[in-house]
């Protein structure tokens, strides 16, 4: 079961690299969050902790349902083209993904994590997800991709914390969720306003200010 979830996270992470359309990217993000939810739920069932159940529930409600819906709404509303604005095309992004995988693996293999190959693998995947978020933020021109990049990084950090210390403290977790949700709303509004003002959401063109 754990293997299934891990490979699911891995597949959705690679899909993020090759997504060319905004709606596809949001859906892939929802998929990744769903696998994260499954992982948390299973951990909660094993440990029998109420905290973890609540965290899993929040993951499901916020990241799998609410945030992708919100972003989908924004995409529909601003009526720009679905194009993400790839600086680096899908195939080369894929090669970057391979490089990141290698990097994450070497990094986590050096850390002397106790446990089997699987633990090292989970750590590497968490690191890969963080790098994916970073890559998305750097290499995609539209503001929406930057939001999803940030969210993907957060997903990676969640997985990170889960492997290193069995999850963050409960209140920290709740605070992070709240933070994420509010920031997505604010950034969504921001994207909407940018679009109203400039009629596009390409972050590169923002340097040219309109009087």
């Amino acid at each position: 079961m754990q293997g299934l979830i891990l490979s699911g996270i891995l597949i959705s992470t690679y899909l993020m690299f090759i997504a060319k359309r905004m709606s596809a990217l949001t859906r892939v993000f929802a998929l990744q969050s769903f696998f994260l939810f499954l992982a948390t739920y299973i951990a909660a069932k094993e440990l029998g902790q109420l905290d973890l159940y609540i965290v899993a529930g929040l993951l499901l409600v916020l990241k799998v349902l609410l945030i992708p819906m919100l972003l989908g709404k924004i995409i529909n509303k601003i009526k720009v083209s679905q194009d993400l604005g790839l600086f680096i095309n899908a195939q080369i992004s894929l090669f970057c993904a391979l490089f990141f995988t290698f990097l994450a693996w070497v990094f986590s293999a050096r850390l002397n994590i106790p446990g089997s190959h699987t633990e090292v693998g989970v750590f590497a995947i968490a690191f890969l997800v963080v790098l994916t978020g970073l890559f998305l933020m750097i290499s995609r021109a539209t503001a929406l991709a930057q939001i999803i990049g940030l969210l993907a990084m957060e997903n990676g950090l969640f997985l990170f914390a889960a492997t290193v210390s069995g999850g963050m403290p409960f209140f920290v977790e709740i605070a992070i969720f709240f933070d994420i949700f509010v920031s997505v709303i604010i950034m969504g509004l921001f994207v909407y306003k940018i679009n109203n003002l400039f009629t596009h959401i390409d972050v590169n063109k923002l340097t040219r200010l309109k009087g």
Partner: protein
Amino acid sequence: MKIFILILQLAWFIALAPFLSGFITKIKNNIRMRKGPSIFQPYYNLAKLFAKSEVISETASWIFRVSPLVVFSSYLTASLMIPVFILLKPFSFIGDFLALIFIFALGRFFLALSALDTGSSFSGMGSSREMFISSLVEPTICLIVFSISLQFGSTDITVFSGMHTVSIAAIITALSLFLITIAETSRVPVDNQETHLELTMVHEAMVLEYSGRSLAFLEMAAYIKQMILFFLIAQIIFPVYLPGPINLVQIFLWCLWYLARITIVAVIVAFVEVAVAKMRLFRVADFLGFAFILGIIAVVCAVMGV
């Protein structure tokens, strides 16, 4: 006894490979509410082609004459390398799993070369497309081999037949191999076997100049290649432990089981082919890129041991 088994395996491949193709066509037609040609149509075609005389272009060199035989024999050799009925490796002195890939590549190389030989613009286009696709396919096949070898600790092809369990790595490997098989057997999202339409011409364009016996050999080679790939998929998803000792009753049972497994794969292929639309040639890179990703995930999963 060993020789007998080998001859049996060879006969099995030659006798059954056209059937598989006819079977897929039949299913596809039935899904589309058509009657379609008989399951045995490929056999009739082959018989007809063998009886016909051959027309060879005046500009063709010896490569054109030789390559149908080279292609045919290379796939036949490949079929001998995988253990089907018993754990026997008659051709293990040639090499392991990686050698299988390169024997495949040999056949493909000669096919592309012979298509260029006559100077026909259509077959030249076909071979250029084929090389484009195969340059994307081969890295993925290598990844698939690495994944399987990591799971079983050896690149020997017989290890692969001693599989017991279906792990997640194995399932993802099979998925990746499935996408590759669709490209390799020139099926719908990549190519179309049914038409001679310019847009879809990859394999069909390459064999355009051939007629008679040579064409029969090339078609037979394509059928055998298809059967090998289907068998590999079936072996990964429905693993069977092949026993060492030789026993005629058991071999008969394996034959039935083998047929059942391959049929399941063929049905899946037929359904996929009906459901999917033909892709633009440059979208094929995305399609095969996805297969490549799956291959990498399979390797990662195999390293993690899940």
